[in-house]
């Protein structure tokens, strides 16, 4: 890596020596893309991409994986300036494209193109294939109209369609063929960099392989650089040189594909990889099941973004002996408390609370009964829980959460981790477990889930 990979709040960063193989094409630094509230009064923005930094080297394929809604598509769109970056820099061959505008941006767009996820939606049904593929050439006034037509026919050839398809309409083609048309349009301006936004996820499995092979061939032929966004890990494994794993607007781990797949460093990557189905039924494998749902990107956790669901979360020393199930319940309790804190109570709710009727949140007793009724709760835990219950009953959720964090919180909840090098090949992970004071992720997962 040619520059330091960092997370915003961390002041001390580790300087990584420049990687030897391939020169860097795109450097992303501290990139943030927030969606502001559409209302006039503002409010908290949705933090779709919340400070990511990475490089893309010339000629490589960088995979970007993560579950739905983690911000990977937004990241891809921001790289192409389809969304405005809120903060941070994107340097494309040294030029910060987030500051480009007008003619410069128009000129730059030649270099970077995108293949969209849904071939049904990415082609205008009222235009012929020829018009669709030709449009980028027309926009950039490429040579003469005759030459453009000729080039379009050659492109159709290149992507495995026929020249006669020039006058056909998109609706006369299958999904795979439509994706080929989309790829032909992408290649029209001979870009250097292509963002592939889940290009095969909408296709039949049999067709997926053809498109993947086509993309590989085109990369070899034209020397393209790909950012491959996907949630299908096996496709990523096959196609990508390096992989970045994203969660809640942050890159959790980035590294060479083979290394990342065989020796994942981050707990989230562990969990993701364990979700890949194993074709051999006799192989004994433990799936790491993640509890709950990802947090609301409007209110990300203060510490590590994955802290609310992490299977290897660092626990305070005095409660280390509690069993995993009780920890899950405690995490649920914290989620509920923060939810209650955010939810605005209506006048009706307040009235019902005053006259002692049920509110839609349920009483604290009910919640406790549900969570801990069948659990053996040690006395020292129970005393903390009682304190929390008292506060919650008085609708002082903020204080309750403070008490909870005081007792059960750890570094994971309090401060964002730093990126740690886990090998020499530019493999980095975003986790507190890599510091020396804590046990390694592997050992913890082995212990808790093994």
């Amino acid at each position, binding site marked *: 890596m040619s520059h330091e990979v960092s997370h915003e709040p961390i002041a001390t960063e580790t300087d990584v020596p420049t990687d030897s193989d391939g020169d860097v094409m795109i450097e992303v630094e501290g990139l943030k893309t927030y969606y502001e509230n559409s209302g006039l009064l503002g409010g908290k923005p949705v933090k779709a991409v919340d400070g990511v930094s990475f490089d893309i080297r010339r000629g490589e394929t960088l995979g970007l994986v993560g579950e739905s809604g983690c911000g990977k598509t937004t990241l891809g769109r921001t790289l192409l300036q389809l969304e405005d970056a809120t903060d941070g820099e994107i340097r494309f061959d040294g030029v910060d494209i987030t500051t480009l505008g007008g003619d410069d941006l128009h000129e730059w767009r030649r270099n970077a193109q995108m293949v969209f996820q849904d071939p049904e939606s990415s082609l205008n049904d009222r235009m012929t294939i020829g018009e669709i593929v030709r449009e980028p050439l027309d926009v*950039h006034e490429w040579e003469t109209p005759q030459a453009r037509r000729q080039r379009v026919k050659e492109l159709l050839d290149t992507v495995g369609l026929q020249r006669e398809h020039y006058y056909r309409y998109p*609706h006369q083609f299958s999904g795979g*063929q439509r994706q080929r048309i989309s790829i032909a349009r992408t290649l029209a301006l001979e870009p250097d960099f292509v963002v592939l936004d889940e290009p095969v996820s909408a296709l039949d499995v049999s067709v997926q392989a053809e498109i993947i092979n086509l993309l590989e061939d085109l990369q070899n032929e034209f020397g393209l650089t790909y950012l491959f966004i996907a949630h299908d890990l096996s496709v990523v494994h096959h196609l990508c040189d390096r992989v970045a794993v994203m969660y809640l607007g942050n890159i959790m781990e980035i590294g060479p594909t083979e290394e990342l797949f065989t020796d994942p460093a981050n707990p989230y990557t562990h969990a993701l990889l364990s979700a890949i189905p194993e074709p051999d039924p006799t192989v004994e494998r433990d799936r790491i099941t993640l509890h709950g749902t990802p947090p609301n990107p409007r209110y990300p956790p203060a510490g590590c973004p994955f802290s609310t669901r992490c299977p290897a979360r660092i626990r305070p020393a005095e409660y280390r002996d509690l069993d995993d199930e009780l920890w899950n319940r405690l995490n649920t309790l914290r989620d509920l408390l923060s939810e209650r804190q955010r939810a605005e109570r209506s006048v009706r709710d307040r009235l019902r609370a005053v006259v002692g009727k049920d509110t839609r949140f349920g009483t604290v007793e009910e919640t406790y009964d549900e969570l801990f009724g069948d659990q053996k709760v040690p006395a020292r835990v129970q005393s903390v829980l009682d304190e929390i219950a008292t506060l919650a009953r008085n609708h002082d959720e903020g204080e309750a959460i403070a008490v909870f964090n005081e007792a059960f919180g750890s570094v994971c909840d309090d401060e964002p981790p730093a990126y740690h090098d886990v090998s020499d090949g530019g493999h980095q992970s975003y986790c507190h477990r890599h510091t020396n004071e804590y046990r390694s992720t592997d050992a913890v997962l082995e212990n808790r889930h093994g």
Partner: protein
Amino acid sequence: MSVRASFEPNETTDESRSLRERVADNPGPARFWLLGTAVLVALEFGRYMGWAQQLVGAVKYVIGLVGLIPTWIGDSVGEATVPIVSYFVSDAITLVLLFGIAVLVTRFTSWSAVDQFDLGLSDRLVRFLERAVLTVVLATIAVLFAFTPVGGLVNGAIDGVFNTLSSIPTLTSREVISNQGHRTPGGGWDGTFLGLSPAVAWGIRTLLVYGYALTMIVWTWKGYTIFREHYRKADWTPRDDTLRRFRTHYWGLFGLIVVLMFIVTALWAPAISPTTADQNIASPYEYEIEYLNDDGDVVTTTPGQANLNSQSNGQNTIGPMSYDDYDRWSPLGTTSSGQNLLTHIAYGAQTSLVIGLLAIGLGGLIAVTMSMLTAYYKGIVDILTVITSDTIISIPAFLLVMMLSVIFNQGNHPIAEPLNGGLLLGLIFAFVYWPGMWRTIRGPSLQVAEEEWVDAARSYGQTPVNTMRKHMAPYIAGYIMIYGSLLLGGIIISTAALSFLGLGIEGSTPEWGRLINDGRSFVGTSSWHVATIPGLMIVLVVTAFNALGDGLRDAIDPEADTGGTDDTGTAAAGGGG
């Protein structure tokens, strides 16, 4: 692939030549068609020049109106502040208007200073300078026209040329086949074409008009097929499919035929009417006609006097296909004030066409533009448009039309002059109905703005205007056409209703709604035709516009295609992916 190899060189040479070169290679069919067109145009040359003159008049009127804007605004500002300010304000607004024209001119011409000179400046700046220079040129021309005799000279020259050209007799002109004459005591006719009866002369002329229009349409179609067969580069284009779909859409064809007949009637109104509107309706006491009276003498009277004795008002009826007492032929009878009903309807078609097309054209343009802008940019533009349109919609449409119409008419505003307020009515309808049209197409616009192909267009740098035009507008076109054609009927009816209330088009301009109003009390009598015939015409025209809209929508939408499975089959079979 051997097939492709042998096919390709041919294809490339074919494609690299312009239309002119292709025609030069094979001039036969083109020459044949152009000759035919020349003959057809020559037959009605005078009439075409008449239309051109009217068009020039309309353009001059619009320019005159726009030219008044700076003074109006300047004077208002001057009254509110210091009088001297008014000059600056009006000059500044003039320059802004001229700059706007310069922007339009540079946008629609392919020549651009950016390509021609390398000044070392950014493209944006060069384009701005180009427009600024053009503004100065336009301002010079405007000053030249307004303050020197040049304007008067040019104006006079244009008028003179058109007056001469439009007076050339044509195939269908009244002078060539005249139906105005009178009986002779001997039983024949005097003054009519070949001494035929006015009914036959009129019939021949009417047939010639529709026959000529039909020939013109067929010849245009023939021209297209010749182009397609001999000169077009591709052997197939999407347009072919659109035409094929429309040709089998019988409901749409019905609409097209009726709408074309309506338009032909409006355009050739002077030829189709047995008498002119000026002689029969506008100034009937300034002309003289001769007729054979009961005593067997040929006497002279004015059309106005004759009209008084030819009324269809229940007691006295001149019905369809009959002569009145003054030897005047009335194919559709007379109105309750004794005017010729067909003359009234033919000229009324002009009025309806102008109002309807102006209202739908302008209103639809505003609606489509606003829906594109609001769907593409959203945010503050959207909110402002919603507020504006809601404000207009919240006032009952008809009340608003009445109010505006009264204000402008009573104020003797220059806009209220043309067509006795017809132009004004068209503008008012456009203003009142655009929010409704915008609302109808807002949903589809927002939907299409979310499509990925709009994002794709942005990703390769397509300009917002072109994105809206190419990637959004075609999806809205179907909706606006259907809604526009529905509304067109509504506007014809509303115009009629306004005339009914005595607020719409008054005076000498013929209007269908006023005919219905005039004749409604005689529907149960022998004078039933006065209200019934225009009523049926309205129904027919409104239905036809709906049918045409329907057919067009189905034709331009490739996905509505039901026929031609062979195309789909081959495309799906090839390529394999």
